[in-house]
């Protein structure tokens, strides 16, 4: 067991602002900068070196940790890339590194054992990340299966094994987890050697923490999950004044009424993915969200952040444009609040109809109803955990074989996440037919202006935009519209 002495500096000026959390078994109180990455803290302050540095941009998973929070007396754990997690975001939480998953003595936990037995570790550098992700799966899963276990490691990259041995290990683990007693998850996981026994004491210990939210910094740069800001400004962040948005996450980050869905600023991509009313309303909803980044990134990356970041290929922006999302922008300094349509937010490359002081407080959209059809398409070099060359979403209402409403958006072919106003308008009122789609393609080409970059040449993006627009209809209406009739 690693013994860690809490950092107590002689100068306690900032004591009231100290960040407090449990790291594995140890209570941490630290006055390190709240913008310090959890990764740097774990490795270089706590000297827990099992958490590895692979890329520092959330793309390899070698630094994966679990972050546990108390919700209604129950612990909920999620995997997260510690390289993109500000220390401030783990205040009041339980942080678990691979060391915190080790059982006492010589025994291995179930995930470790499966990885060893299947020779699923070669150089070993990515391995702790896989172990942590798999243990996170064991903690979270309700109904285990091999596909789910593999899904839990979709953010972990291995350069040695070719993954097949890891897949076999994950499959074994899932088999064992089928017997999980969800009603008594923690004790079951401990007794079945998935976790060390100190986990059962964590809820009690965490509830005793002075978990009051502390105002750590009053900066101007809002930071949510950090999944973009740490990638873009890794070296500058330690000197930046930040406003930590994700820390005030309410118990319900997504609210539903009969017809609409409201996301708070803290809602993550995972929250969106797991929202049952959306899965019920939109066939394939979870699969669409699975195309967005990876599990640990979806767990921490916020929807609001994806919108505000204004990347021309932001997946969530593209989806939300199609569903006609509206934003509530708040300027706390002026005590003003206004609502705007998302399709009016983007003015030019990274230029928004939003003052720097305005924060996205809420995102609201109508849940697709019966007769409406939603599809999301994304093509990149790698299907998962990659940034799109082109992505596009479509929401259409079809009544009596006629398109009555249409909203189509597209990314990667304009300086902004593009709402295809003309193309959408063109579709409305026309029959649902290959002919309509073919005609709409001509309109589409007038609305896009791709440039060549590392994600593809302009020629490719023109072609891909056309293909994916067609794919919406081929996927949604396979009986009516066939690929052969479009191309």
């Amino acid at each position, binding site marked *: 067991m690693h013994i860690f002495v809490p950092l107590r500096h002689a100068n306690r000026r900032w004591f009231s602002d100290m960040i407090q959390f449990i790291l594995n078994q140890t209570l941490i109180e630290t006055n390190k900068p709240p913008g310090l990455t959890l990764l740097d803290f774990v490795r270089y302050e706590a000297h827990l070196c099992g958490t590895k540095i692979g890329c520092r941009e959330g793309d390899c998973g070698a630094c994966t940790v679990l972050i546990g929070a108390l919700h209604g007396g129950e612990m909920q754990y999620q995997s997260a890339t510690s390289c993109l997690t500000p220390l401030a975001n783990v205040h009041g939480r339980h942080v678990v590194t691979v060391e915190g998953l080790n059982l006492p003595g010589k025994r291995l936990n179930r995930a470790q054992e499966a990885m060893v037995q299947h020779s699923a570790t070669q150089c*070993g550098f990515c391995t702790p990340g896989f172990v942590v992700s798999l243990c996170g799966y064991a903690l979270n899963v309700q109904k285990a299966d091999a596909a789910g276990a593999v899904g839990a490691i979709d953010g972990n990259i291995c350069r040695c094994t070719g993954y097949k041995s890891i897949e076999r290990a994950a499959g074994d683990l899932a088999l064992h987890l089928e017997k999980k007693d969800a009603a008594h998850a923690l004790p079951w996981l401990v007794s079945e050697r998935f976790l060390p026994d100190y986990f059962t004491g964590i809820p009690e210990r965490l509830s005793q923490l002075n978990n009051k939210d502390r105002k750590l910094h009053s900066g101007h740069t809002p930071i949510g999950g950090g999944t973009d800001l740490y990638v873009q400004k890794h070296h500058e962040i330690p000197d930046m004044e930040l406003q930590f948005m994700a820390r005030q996450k309410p118990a319900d980050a997504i609210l539903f009424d009969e017809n609409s869905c409201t996301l708070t600023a803290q809602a993550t991509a995972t929250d969106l993915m797991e929202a049952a009313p959306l899965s019920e309303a939109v066939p394939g909803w979870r699969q669409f969200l699975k195309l967005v980044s990876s599990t640990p990134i979806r767990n921490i990356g916020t929807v609001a952040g994806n919108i505000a970041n204004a990347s021309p290929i932001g997946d969530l922006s593209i989806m939300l444009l199609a569903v006609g999302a509206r934003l509530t922008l708040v300027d706390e300094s002026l005590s003003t609040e206004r609502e705007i349509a998302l399709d009016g937010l983007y003015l030019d490359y990274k230029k928004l109809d939003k003052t720097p002081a305005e924060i996205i407080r809420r995102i609201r959209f109508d849940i697709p109803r019966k007769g409406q059809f939603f599809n999301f398409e994304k093509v990149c070099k790698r299907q998962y955990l990659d940034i799109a060359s082109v992505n596009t979403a479509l929401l259409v209402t079809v009544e009596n074989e006629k398109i009555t409403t249409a909203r189509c958006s597209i990314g990667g072919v304009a300086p902004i996440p593009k709402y295809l106003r003309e193309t959408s308008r063109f579709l409305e009122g026309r029959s649902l037919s290959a002919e309509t789609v073919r005609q709409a393609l001509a309109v589409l080409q007038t609305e896009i202006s791709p440039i060549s970059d590392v994600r593809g040449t302009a020629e490719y993006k023109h072609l891909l935009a056309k293909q994916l627009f067609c794919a919406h209809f081929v996927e949604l209406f396979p009986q009516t519209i066939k690929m052969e009739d479009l191309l």
Partner: protein
Amino acid sequence: MINIDAENHVRGRSVYLDDIPELQGTLYALPFDLPTAHAHITSLHLDKARALPGVAAILTAADIPGENQIGGILPDEPLFAEGEVHFWGQPVGLIVADSDHICRKAARLIEAEYEALPVVTDPREAQQLGRLICPPRTFVIGDTAGAWSQCAHIFEGQTAVNGQEHLYIEAHGAYARMKEDGSVIISSSTQGPTAVQRTVAKVLDLPMHKVEVDTVRLGGGFGGKEDQATGWAVMAALAAQHLQGPVKLVLHRLDDMRMTGKRHPYEADFKIGLDEHLRIIAWEVTHYQNAGAAADLSTAVMERTLFHSTNAYHIPNVRATAYSCKTNLPPNTAFRGFGGPQGKFVIEAAIALAAERIGVSAAEIQQANLLRDGDEMPYGQIMQQTQARSTWAACMERYNYTGQRERVQAFNEQNTRYKKGMAVQPICFGISFTNTMMNHARALVHIYQDGSVVVSTGAVEMGQGVNTKLVQVAAQSLGISPGRVRIESTNTLRVANTSPTAASAGADLNGKALQTACAALMERLKKVAEAALGHSDVAIQNEVVMAGGKPSELGWEQLVLMAHQQRVSLSENGHYATPLIHFDKSKEKGHPFAYHVYGTAITIVTVDCLRGTYTFDSVDVVHDFGNSMNMAVDLGQIEGGLVQGIGWMTLEEVAYNAQGRLLSNALSTYKIPDIYSVPKSIRIASLETEGHDLAILKSKAVGEPPLMYGLGAYFAIREAIRAFNPGADLKVDAPYTPEKVLLDLYRSPSSQGT
């Protein structure tokens, strides 16, 4: 036997370079470069950066006490650029400070003025300009000029194959500490501790005995840390010497990707001639290797391209030429396969093209030309114990090639949106460093008086399982349990003058040296046992001394203690040099390889012809392991190598712009396979053979060969595209990214790929 490191790996307890506990006062170093690929530096302003609190020193070429030179094969690469910068990412100097954060702040304060010089990134352009790393080389057998007249079919073409970023998950790093007498100890994440030692000595102006290099393990190497770990280790050592204190240098991923070389991109011109029985009669190929701005290992890589220009085929008339072209890219370097895959790619492309034009399957041409015993290679080696035809036949039969072929054809007839493609990929890969003098190794073995054993060799563990194999060799050679054997770090004080762990030869060379050492120890121990038992026929099995085939009273521990008490040495340094191999560069003929590794793989892909994306249904392999000493380790090498090869052929696209700036400079822009992009099914079967005497315990080298099964991915995709768009005139330009796939799917028959 499971990898001996596995349990520590899964617990997060294995120590990599950046995990070494730091000494008090450790400083951190960051190399800096200029945002240009080719320029004359007119001035460098370091004062502002030097004045930043926490900066200990900024070192440039002027601070080097010895030679400003790190070139491994040719002395053409300075540690720090002097006067001119030759690639974007070339270190100009080193910032040393109290923290990495301060280093990076200081880097932003450095200003430089420079005059831009013309940038060349295209190898053909460099060759035209006469910018070559070394003189071109040509391998010849038979007479191609005279052979064309015997050919029923002649085809010419061009190919391009891109580079590949190693993407070892652990970036480069080194940690240097001074010792009291001015000697320096460097922990380095290197595949070649001796190269680091030799170069540190040269740059720091120290004799080699004052430089100790220690390597515990690497978080992946793949060739990327064979030669290119050296510069970073030298910088750390230079800073430690300069400041007389401990200095650590660990590259951030973006620095690592920008500053280090990759697998060499190649272009090629080819001409292939076949007779009416599809036998390849003549093969001419000219390779243009994109070496980057300095030699690094390019000359040796180029040599292996020539060695493997005919892959697993016997061709009586061959003329293969290669140019190593000097461009303004980071010096390209070793990467699993070491030029071999690029050499094979061209002939496979030529066969695919010939098959398409003649109207047969590529497999028919491949099969008609596979090597047999007694065939002479263009480099003069007469092939023996050839397994090209046996692995092919086993693969066809075991995986029902004909049935699979029919299913693919039926699928394509029934489907419009999705098309399947299939490719067979035979491989033949020569084992040995092609530079004969490098094929030797040493192993130091101590048996302690309690019977425990420690082994040091020149092999570096980087996930390939060499240490596990060494434990097996020692345990088997000494007749003891593997639990008694510990493998120590790779250290230049314990084992000197080593070759890098590379060329798939780490287990063979170091294992054989270990066998030599163990055999000498056994001889001495047996003498002790013979005297003690009064028996002339003794052996050790399962830690018991056997006398005349029967267990005696004497166990391993007593025997060892007895030997120690009788003043018998329990330490031995074994040496091994691969026998039989030789190569005469003046004639380009010889017997350069101890043996060859063979195998055949069948790849099936499904292409989504609407989106231009693809998934691999299956790869079925029959591989020539020899007599595998550790199937768990070896299977991992096959699966991992295969997937790395598929990545190279599909997703992995190294992109530089015309100014020589790396665009694919992060994991967000350079994509290696994730768990979802690997084939749904990978089946690997072993060809049953007796193994090869020059392979350790008859278990053949396994590191590099499987990467080349990945070539099949490219040609399977090509076949699927042709099923959708039969008339298209397709270029050969790997990798087949989704972009190229979509453009080829919708290419009009008249236009050739751009």
